[in-house]
């Protein structure tokens, strides 16, 4: 039981050979308004649902190797690695909770957001038909499942964030955010008398520790945290979630925040919660924190908790229309 499972995934060539895109497919960037993202977005979902980003795999393996061989924490992390290999090989969902689907689209002037929304919705609907995604969109009060992953009235699921930018290429990032991890996210308002947390970095630290302790294993630890300091209730949450897209192991551009993240990660891993809350030294895989501006009266700390199965990826359509996928 205590052998170290090596996470050998299928090669980039094999992944490409299973692609939905015809060989040599390119987007026609000379006609941005007429662009069709459906197929390349489906391909993005095929990859994100079945294959974890390499930085996440590396962090899980590093965590496993630091646990005592044969311990429950070690075995659990080993099972996670086994699961990663299987899902990749079978092109099947890593987890049955394929999450809420959240897109971030960055595009040049001339691109149609209305058309892209339709195409991304079509991509999600088709990925659901192919059993790559579970139908995860239900009417709140009745619990009735739309069956298609579509929110038929207000178009809030899948969630799509658009931004026009000053670049010639298009980027589509996606996150599959599981419900269990979403439930253990938390937003604090400082000062917090119960935690004894003031409006300073020490107070922020207390909020994060508190959120991780309250989460225990219920968000499928080891977790990945996106933390925004400031903003309002909505912008803070949005930013916190987007921070989960940052690759593990990449330094925060703000050296002070980088040091804060590293120290906090070390400290959180002394809590003893461990993988799935079984106990152990791997409670979080990383923290991405960012300071925002805020209203003088408000001080929010928003903590997005992502499960170990952090399914995210980015499709880039280069200026010449060449697609590439980064997971």
């Amino acid at each position, binding site marked *: 039981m205590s052998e170290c499972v090596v996470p050998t995934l299928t090669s980039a060539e094999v992944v490409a050979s299973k692609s939905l895109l015809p060989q040599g497919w390119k987007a026609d960037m000379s006609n941005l308004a007429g662009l069709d993202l459906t197929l390349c977005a489906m391909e993005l979902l095929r990859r994100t649902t079945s294959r974890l980003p390499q930085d996440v795999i590396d962090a899980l393996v590093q965590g496993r190797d630091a646990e005592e061989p044969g311990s*429950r924490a070690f075995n*659990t992390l080993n*099972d*996670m690695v*086994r*699961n990663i290999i*299987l*899902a990749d090989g*079978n092109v*099947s*969902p*890593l*987890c*049955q*909770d*394929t999450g809420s689907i959240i897109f971030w689209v960055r595009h040049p002037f001339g691109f149609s957001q209305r058309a892209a929304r339709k195409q991304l919705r079509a991509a999600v609907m088709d990925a659901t038909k192919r*059993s790559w*995604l*579970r*139908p*995860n969109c*239900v009417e709140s009060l009745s*619990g*009735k*499942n739309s*069956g298609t992953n579509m929110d038929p009235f207000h178009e809030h699921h899948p969630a799509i964030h658009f931004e026009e930018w000053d670049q010639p290429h298009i980027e589509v990032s996606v996150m599959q955010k*599981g*419900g*269990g991890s979403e*439930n253990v996210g938390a937003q604090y308002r400082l000062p917090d008398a119960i*935690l*004894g947390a003031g409006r300073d970095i020490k107070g922020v*630290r*207390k909020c994060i*520790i*508190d959120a991780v*302790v309250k989460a*225990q*294993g*219920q968000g*499928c630890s080891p977790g990945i945290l996106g933390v925004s300091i400031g903003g309002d209730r909505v912008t803070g949450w949005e930013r916190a979630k987007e921070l989960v897209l940052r690759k593990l192991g990449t330094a925060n551009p703000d050296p002070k925040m980088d040091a804060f993240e590293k120290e906090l990660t070390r*400290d959180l891993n*002394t*809590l*003893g*919660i*461990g993988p*799935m*809350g*079984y*106990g152990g030294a791997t409670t979080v895989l990383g923290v991405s924190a960012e300071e925002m501006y805020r209203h003088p009266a408000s001080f929010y700390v928003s903590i997005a908790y992502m*499960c*170990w*199965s952090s399914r995210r990826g980015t499709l880039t359509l280069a200026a010449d229309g060449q697609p590439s996928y980064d997971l």
Partner: protein
Amino acid sequence: MIRLTTPITEEAIRQLKVGDEVLLNGNVVLSRDMGHKFMKEQKPDWLKPILENMVIYHCGPVVRKNADGTWTFVAAGPTTSIREEPYQADVIETYKVRGVIGKGGMGKKTSEGLQKTGAVYLHATGGAGSLLAERVKRVVDVKMLEEFGSPEAFWIIEVEDFPLVVTMDSHGGSLHEIVAQQSQDRAKALMA
């Protein structure tokens, strides 16, 4: 490693202790949020023969319907159990359920229910959807699929060597309570 096959006797369940590793075989019944609310509020009789001495699994699978009308489980890991805390003890008692599979553990009320009826909480690795789907031999039946939708329906599946750990036993033991207590103590020191 302990091999158990459903249906399970109370006697066999009472022997299990926190930390025991179990390989489960036989039929298990999937149920989560809608199913638990339904079971507690409506207590339908037709579920009694399906659940007596059986195991409930907190899971909303990804399924695929095959050309011949049968179903295949594509991904089938556990969902967070604590959401069923208001219902679980009643469900266990009403239907004489011997085990509950899930993730994250459950609270005091469920622990009391486990002790009273003679049942255990079995922990599966969260997120291991592909790995656990491989241990599903076949889909035996499904109830309330139309009404609840596929993630919430009562799927009845046959599993083979389904890997689990007892984290709450029928004697009041809970690994989750121990880890929570220790981590709270450590958090106090980190916040000081």
